[in-house]
């Protein structure tokens, strides 16, 4: 297993945001984590990247326990993330934003930069524009491109489709598949379950800080409970049981976008 999250618990103050999330991502896979707003998807990714401390459980990456490794060191070991809200540095140009991706890494990066520009020709056209003045879709491309500049073994994507027009969403998801074809493992967090399940190999469903289901992505597409809760199938009962989805203790991850 490339990435193993084992029964992690994360608290904001006294409130539990995650209580016992476990998931696995194998080399070469696209794995998606779907769930409603506030279910704990973003917190899971932030904890994997070391931005949130965990109070229990552990995170293994490539066989090593990285639970206590500082966030900035996890990037070097191969965990890259395009965060929720994209996290573009508004005062930096497109190129400067991309170069931040290889901040911690030594050596020649011109090939990586050329690859990102090839994957996102739009970024090449706008390479001297300030990141803050770009459209939502362009910013998302920049966030993914910048994460690729960290040369990741696993790429964590937090809601890449958020706020984008359907056509752009299609484009972003096909680029995610292309990135995976070129050998990068992907852990994709999405509210847009339909799209996510179509590109992923396997999927997990998270509700109020707990994983309630895991299966092949194609199986979940046909799962009546998942269809009902996340794919617009009509019924409004969440997958995990009787509680309404926003009721229990998982607080909304503070947003910065």
């Amino acid at each position, binding site marked *: 297993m490339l990435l193993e999250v084992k029964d992690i618990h994360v608290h904001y103050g006294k409130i539990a945001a995650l209580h016992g999330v476990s998931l696995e991502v194998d080399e070469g896979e696209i794995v998606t984590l779907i769930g409603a707003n506030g279910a704990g998807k973003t917190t899971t990714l932030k904890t994997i990247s070391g931005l949130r401390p965990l109070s229990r459980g552990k995170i293994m990456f490539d066989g090593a326990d990285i639970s206590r490794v500082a966030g*900035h*060191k996890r990037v070097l070991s191969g965990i890259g993330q395009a965060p929720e809200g994209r996290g*573009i540095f508004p005062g930096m140009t497109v190129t400067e934003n991309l170069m*931040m991706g290889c901040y*911690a890494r030594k050596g020649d990066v011109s090939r990586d930069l050329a690859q990102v520009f090839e994957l996102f020709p739009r970024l090449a056209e706008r390479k001297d524009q300030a990141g803050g003045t770009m459209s939502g879709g362009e910013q998302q491309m920049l966030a993914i491109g910048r994460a690729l500049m*960290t040369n990741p073994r696993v790429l964590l994507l937090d809601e890449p489709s958020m706020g984008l027009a359907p056509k752009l969403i299609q484009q972003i998801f096909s680029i995610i598949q292309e990135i995976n074809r070129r050998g990068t493992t992907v852990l994709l967090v999405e509210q847009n379950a339909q799209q996510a399940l179509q590109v992923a190999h396997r999927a997990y469903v998270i509700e109020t800080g707990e994983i309630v289901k895991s299966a092949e992505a194609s199986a979940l597409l046909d799962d009546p409970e998942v269809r009902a809760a996340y794919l617009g199938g009509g019924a409004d009962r969440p997958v995990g049981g009787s509680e309404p989805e926003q009721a229990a203790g998982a607080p909304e991850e503070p947003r910065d976008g």
Partner: protein
Amino acid sequence: MKATHNVHNFLEQFWPSTVDGLALGSIYALIALGYTMVYGVLRLINFAHSEIFMIGTMAVIGALHALGVSSLYGGLGLVGFVIVLAFLAGLASGASAVVLELVAYRPLRKKGASRLAALISAIGASLFLQQLFARIVIPEAFDLPKEKGALPVQGHFVERDNVIEIGDLVISNDKLIIFVGAILMMVALDQFVNRTRLGRGIRATAQDPETAVLMGVNIDRIVTATFAIGGAMAGVAAALFMLRFEEAKFDVGFLLGIKAFTAAVLGGIGNLRGALAGGLVLGLVEMYGAALFGTQWQHVIAFSVLVLVLMFRPTGILGESLQQARA
């Protein structure tokens, strides 16, 4: 009658006020950099920054005593000597700022304490450093009886003369060095922040600290660098201050610190070029105001500027900040 007298006085004093204002404003600007950089990265007003400046002035006086300087310097010799003093003071202030952060701020940050807690810690550190110097460091360093530690200590090394005289415009060597020195430091810092890897790390952290971590930026190291650079700039400001005033005491930073903070707010806190603009504008406003209304109003005018800016344009003259700006 009074008004015409004032205006007459102002016109007569215009060029001297301009020169004095720019010299004073240059010192404000260099100190303001420390406030603005730390604010940009940590959203913290480092109120102990005024004591970091004071430590710089003491380093200069200490160096003058240690070197046994008795002759006065003028001309190019003075320029060289000021560079040496600025280097020493920058080192002392920069190192003190790094220690200050480690002791007074970092433990709070690691515990996730509120910004109010950090602010109170800043005020505490400021008072602590003042008293430490008044009661122990200054008496020990300058062989003074304990009760005299709060009195000013001197360091004379400047032979003043006028280097530029064009009609009413008279510029003395010390003021010229202050102005040129401050501008050079600002340009160097601007280049550093925009062109070096560490500078990019500082900008990234100011714009979005969590994403900076995702890029592999070690925030602790960036914070240390920010305090070191801001402190060093205050040290250089201290050397330039000593060039002009040749004496300092334990609370010399207090008023200057608040003025520099005003300059930082005036220029737009978090904005490096704003610190320069704010410093120079504040220096000029103060000196013009003093010429118009009398020197006793100098501080009132400066702080009225602070209140007015906070009321009507809280983002400052240049508006955008280190978080947004290219610089």
